């Protein structure tokens, strides 16, 4: 090694050190520690005990119940909350489609679009506990805005429009949270990404399509949709990754995961297992299952996407 390159390596070490130490201590090493913890039983107060694959068996396995005479999941709650999480993720395609529609509308050369963009982005900016509290108020059974509006509409039209107890009804709590999610996310990150993508579609393609006399609908499917497919692909993957880890703040602030566990997601369950029941090993096992599912799903999407996505 020459003198100059060893000097450069030393300088690099100096630049890297602050970040690298933090990275090793708070990210890199914890990943391995977490993996080890998943094979232990630990309540923080006694020494951790090695239990092998027990946590994973308790989480993912099943057994035959001789009393009920049927096969039961070892942790039926976990599977219920997986179901809740998947159910709430059904809002993802709706949200993506909505963001795309908004971006298409805004991509026209009309005046005042900057103002619209700002307005649609506002719920994303405000997102957080304050907005969750606001929606808890809007969804109030008796005196919330939404049920008041429905009642008013019912009086005018004569239809029986009595809104449900949105957050207190096992049937409506999940759709209510999904609707709130659509409101806060539809004009946010995804729409901005779509706008940028739409502005990058080569103009010649539109001209060629117009020369062929294609209709707007046809042009969209033949030109726009393939051209922005990498963006759709990126948004889809990121939404899936976030979706699996979602739902904690809503459940914690608005519903406590209820009613009857109907808004408890995997992430909220994991938090409760770790920090109210102090089952650190079991919680680590859940975290790793979540990680593996996300990894597999991302890889599958990647594989499938590679066939569909059109890179210019």
């Amino acid at each position, binding site marked *: 090694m020459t003198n100059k390159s060893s000097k450069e390596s030393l300088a690099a070490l100096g630049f890297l050190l602050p970040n690298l130490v933090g990275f090793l201590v708070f990210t890199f090493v914890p990943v391995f520690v977490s993996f080890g913890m998943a094979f232990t039983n630990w309540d923080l107060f006694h020494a951790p005990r090695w239990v092998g694959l027990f946590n994973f068996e308790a989480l993912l396995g099943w057994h035959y119940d001789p009393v009920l005479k049927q096969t039961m999941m070892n942790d039926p709650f976990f599977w219920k909350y997986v179901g809740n999480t998947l159910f709430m993720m059904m809002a993802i395609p709706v949200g993506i489609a909505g963001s795309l529609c908004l971006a298409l509308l805004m991509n026209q050369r009309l005046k005042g679009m900057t103002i619209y963009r700002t307005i649609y982005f*506002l719920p994303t900016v*405000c997102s957080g506990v304050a907005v969750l509290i606001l929606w808890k108020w809007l969804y109030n059974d008796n005196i919330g805005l939404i049920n008041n509006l429905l009642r008013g509409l019912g009086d005018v039209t004569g239809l029986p429009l009595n809104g449900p107890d949105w957050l207190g009804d096992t049937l409506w709590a999940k759709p209510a949270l999904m609707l709130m999610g659509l409101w806060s996310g539809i004009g946010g990150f995804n729409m901005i990404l779509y706008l940028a993508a739409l502005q990058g579609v080569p103009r010649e393609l539109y001209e060629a399509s117009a020369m062929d006399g294609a209709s707007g609908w046809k042009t969209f499917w033949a030109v726009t949709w393939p051209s922005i497919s990498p963006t759709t692909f990126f948004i889809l993957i990121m939404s899936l990754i976030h979706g699996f880890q979602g739902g904690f703040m809503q459940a914690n602030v608005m519903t406590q995961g209820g009613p009857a566990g109907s808004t408890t997601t995997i992430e909220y369950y994991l938090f409760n297992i770790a920090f109210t029941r102090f089952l650190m090993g079991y919680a680590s096992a859940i975290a790793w299952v979540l990680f593996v599912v996300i990894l597999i799903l991302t890889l599958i999407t990647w594989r499938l996407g590679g066939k569909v996505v059109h890179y210019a």
Partner: protein
Amino acid sequence: MRNDPQVVGAQPRSAVESQMARSKSPWKAIFAYSVLTLGAVTMLFPLYWMVLTSLEPGDVAFSSGTIHWWPSKFVWSNYPDAMEAVNIPRLYFNSILVALLGTLGQVITSSMAAFAFARLTFPGRDRLFFTYLATMMIPGSVTMIPNFVLLRMLGWIDTYQALIVPSMFSAYGTFLLRQFFMGLPSELEDAAKIDGSGYFGIFARITLPLSMPALATLTTFTFMGFWGSYMWPLIVIQRAELRTLPIGLASFVGRYSAEYSLWMAASVIALVPVLVVFVFNQRYFQEGIKMSGIKG
């Protein structure tokens, strides 16, 4: 900006395109405006309702069946009442302290590491960078529990450093800035090298000043991240004096179960700094989103 009519007018239009523009009937514009306006009202109305409720007297806000679109009486005292009930000055102080120090730390450590990855050669560089990238895929809940255990061992539970230090080192920030530094022209740096500048001189006097847009973007996003952070403070803070704004707000809702006017007043107060940051940094938001989309 594409939407600016003057800029659009300055672009040469092809024959086909102007024909396209002419064939566009006004109905299309009317349709777009109607849909967008309807949507905009849906976006804004809940926020308006928040401000409205925050100014209502408690009993009026709760009477069933009546909707009024304007406060029957402006009860400004809801704001000082909410401030007192939740101890908002303290929550503000904590949130601002944590967000400022955390953001400062993250921007400094990320930019230094990014400089090493983008501009210096050293053994194992690419492998280390790939490790950084790979960890970005790992869910936060994997590292959360070991970090909590570590902080507990250090005696950091219920301290400011528990809120700041673990989030100060970001693989994402390093990645974002590294991509930006890679795109900078290296001529200026070469000239500085010939003039005898050391690596740190180049970093501080050339790379950083040229990277202001990327730094502003990272600063904005990191600040918002710290400001809205919820799960981590919930884990490491138990004492009320150390709560950040989101935690304090949520616990307020738990304690005062039907004080909607106060809830909304407290929520409005909590949103003000975020809106200020947004208004002044709007373009960094949008640029930042586009930059993060590039990696896809």
